[in-house]
């Protein structure tokens, strides 16, 4: 079964002045990308927070120096894809301008795959190493969070014993992962 790669797409809303140092856009990018990596959709929380996130130049600054400080060329990204992408001049899909769900999907445990119909998706899958297990784990942890909310609602509405037990099991599991992942960061 193919699940959507992401639920919402980031939008670049910043319309202010152009900074001479692109690092000054980090607050705006963080907000516009909802604290998520534009390419993997992973939340920065699971990487140790904002300090580990970087600013990617969608069109590499080495080839397009005129776009160095243009907000429209910046992508909030995790260190993994930013380093993997480096100064690659090949074609990529802009996370704000393109519907990534037409190019990527997830399996039931959150692994990312490129759509068979998307050559650029296939290229990005390899170049950005979107196959790494970490993206599946992070997707599942976010799914656990959502399920906790659903269960909480069910418990409140029905008082069902099974829902209470499952809520306890899931919350315990989630907290253990959270602690485990924070411990290595």
């Amino acid at each position: 079964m193919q699940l959507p790669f992401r639920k919402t797409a980031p939008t670049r809303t910043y319309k202010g002045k152009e900074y001479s140092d692109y690092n000054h856009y980090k607050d705006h990018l963080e907000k516009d990308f909802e604290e998520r990596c534009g390419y993997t959709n992973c939340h920065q929380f699971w990487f140790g927070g904002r300090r580990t996130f970087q600013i990617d130049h969608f069109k590499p600054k080495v080839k397009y120096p005129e776009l160095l400080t243009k907000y429209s060329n910046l992508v909030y990204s995790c260190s993994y894809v930013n380093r993997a992408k480096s100064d690659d001049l090949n074609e990529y899909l802009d996370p704000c301008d393109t519907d990534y769900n037409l190019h990527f999907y997830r399996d039931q445990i959150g692994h990312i795959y490129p759509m068979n119909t998307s050559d650029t998706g296939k290229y990005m899958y390899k170049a950005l190493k979107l196959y790494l297990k970490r993206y599946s784990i992070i997707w599942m942890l976010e799914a656990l969070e959502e399920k906790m909310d659903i269960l909480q609602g069910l418990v409140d509405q029905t008082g069902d014993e099974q829902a209470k037990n499952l809520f306890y099991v899931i919350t315990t599991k989630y907290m253990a992962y959270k602690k485990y992942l924070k411990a290595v960061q």
Partner: protein
Amino acid sequence: MTKFTVAYIDESESDIRRFQRFSYSYFNVLPILPLPDIKETIKLIIDSNIDAVIADFDLSEQNAQIHFDGTDLVRAVLKKREGFPVFILTSFEDDAINKGDDVNIVYEKKELDEGNNFLDRVKSQIEKYKHQLEVNEARIIELLQENQKRKLDAFEKQELKELDSKIEKALDKESQIPNSLRDEKESNELAELLKAVDQLANNLKNKQ
């Protein structure tokens, strides 16, 4: 052919210019002057798109504000990116070797005056590093494709986990996921939990 880009860290601007002249035909050189704060210097290096790091050993010789040396920098880079090509140039080889963890990354600055051996070594180390990454990547993709067609055997599963960890550590060792989370059993357990919630939600919905 695309030239590799190397970061060259030295507090002496004349030595930076000298290195740029010396390696012009081999590499694009990204000169980095060390900042008083080692963390900021490391950030400059790590955030740059480079293929190797070459650092002068004694960074305080002409700048008394610097309280760290080249070995501190390359150690920090390796802490973030496992196996990344790093080199130290020194006029005092023994000092650097005593402090550095790996004698194979320390070279005397005088080698720069004795031909291109040092540059050849850097280039070859970058190529070797990139080649290994490519080999690892080709194999992991092969295993992932197989995994979609059939059940991998125990050896293949182990290999898949190890490759995933290696590739992850090469990009960022600091935020890597614990190895136990790469385990298929762990993923399946999580998936079962997610499924159980959906089923329960449906059942309760149908009861209402």
